[in-house]
Each structure stands twice: as C-alpha cells, then as structure tokens.
C-alpha cells in the first residue's frame, strides 16, 4: 500500500474516537470543568465523526487498489468507532444516572444519626467526637461528610 492509497481520514477518525473515549477517564475526569459535562470528549467525537464519514466515502471510491478490502476495512472501522461513541454516550448520559432515589437520606434541618467507624489507621472515630474535638484550640463549626464510591 503506498501513501497515496492510505485512507488517512478513516484512520484519523478511528484515532480521534479512541482519544475521545479514553481521555475522559485518563485526563478530563480530574478537572471539574471537563468532568461535570464531557464537552471536550463530545468535540473530539464530532471531529472524529467528520473524518470517519470522509474515510467511509473514500473507502468506497472506485479507484481503490483493492476495492473489496477497502470497503470492508472502512465499514468495520466506522462501525466499531460509532459503537465506541455510543458506549461513551450511554455510560455518561444514561448509566451514570442510574442512582437509587435515597428518599430516606437525612434532609436539611434534620439531625443525622450518630455512628462510629474505623479510620485508615484502624482507630474507632465517632461523628460526635469529630463535632466536639477542638481544632487549633477552637471548637469545630461542623463536619463535612463525604460518601464516595471507594477505590476498592
């Protein structure tokens, strides 16, 4: 295959799709402005889609050296790329929203239940202790409770 025959828009489209998918987890999830709404990834997918479309059309041109192979490669890679984009959109916009209703969670104005749990050194820590133990000689104003999914 010589350079002029290479279907570069197709491969660029595939590359941009892969970057668009994996960069969210690898890079953009670390910054609230790109995490809370994945606009960088959507932009990458948009550019990828343009090149995939060009690559698909180029793969089906009649002047290809191996027309059948060219069509198969263009079709398969475009399909896989579209599936990857769809998987990303599903993961972010649908799957990540499947959260329980948590109607029984403490509401503003309610007292929260007291509890005691071990910290990362194994020491038992209670909420009441955190609310009353002075910090820098001053009583704490309160406690921020952050429940998180965990690192397992």
């Amino acid at each position, binding site marked *: 295959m010589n350079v002029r025959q290479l279907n570069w828009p197709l491969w660029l489209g595939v590359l941009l799709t892969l970057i668009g998918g994996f960069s969210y987890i690898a890079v953009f999830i670390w910054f609230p402005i790109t995490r809370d709404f994945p606009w960088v990834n959507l932009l990458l997918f948009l550019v990828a889609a343009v090149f995939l479309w060009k690559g698909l059309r180029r793969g089906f041109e009649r002047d290809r050296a191996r027309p059948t192979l060219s069509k198969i490669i263009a079709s398969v890679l475009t399909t896989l790329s579209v599936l990857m984009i769809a998987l990303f959109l599903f993961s972010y916009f649908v799957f990540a929203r499947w959260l329980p209703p948590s109607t029984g969670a403490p509401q503003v104005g309610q007292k*929260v239940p007291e509890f005691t749990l071990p910290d990362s050194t194994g020491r038992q820590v209670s909420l009441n202790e955190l609310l009353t133990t002075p910090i820098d000689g001053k009583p704490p104003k309160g406690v921020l409770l952050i*429940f998180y*999914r*965990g690192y397992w």
Partner: protein
Amino acid sequence: MAISVDSPEVSRNMTQQAGYTFPFLSDQRLEVIRRYDLLHAGAGENGADIARPAELLIDKTGTVRWINLTENYFVRARPEDVLDKVNLLE
C-alpha cells in the same frame, strides 16, 4: 471526613498517595451507608454494594445544613461551592 466501603488498608494507601489529611472511615459492612439511605446496590466491583456519592454538611449540633445527592455519579460538588456553604456555619 470521607466514608466508603474501602478497608482501612485501601484508605491508608490512597490517603498517603494523595496526601489527604482528613479522616477516611471504613464502612465495610455498609451499616452507616444503609442508615443514611445512600446504598447503591450492585454498583461496585463484581456487583458489590457500595455508597452512592453524597456530600452532607453537618453543623455542631449534628443537624444537616446542606446535602448534595448528585444525579450523575460523574458530577460531584465543587470545592468552591462547598466552601461557600461551610462559610454559612456559625
């Protein structure tokens, strides 16, 4: 303070790497997570039960002043917004 199903060992490794200085508590038996109705059943590794992301600001009397239950687990409360709420505490 942060609460998850992680063991103290996992929390220790993570906090040492990240340099966090506030307490990370382990609720491996999901007792507090259940009591606060923040269980996300089957959402962990191999279908394990974990906590959904949630932030609660508790004042010194133990009363909730602010709670954030995200609708999308990629979206979390931003530190500057939380600090705004913290400044409301007496």
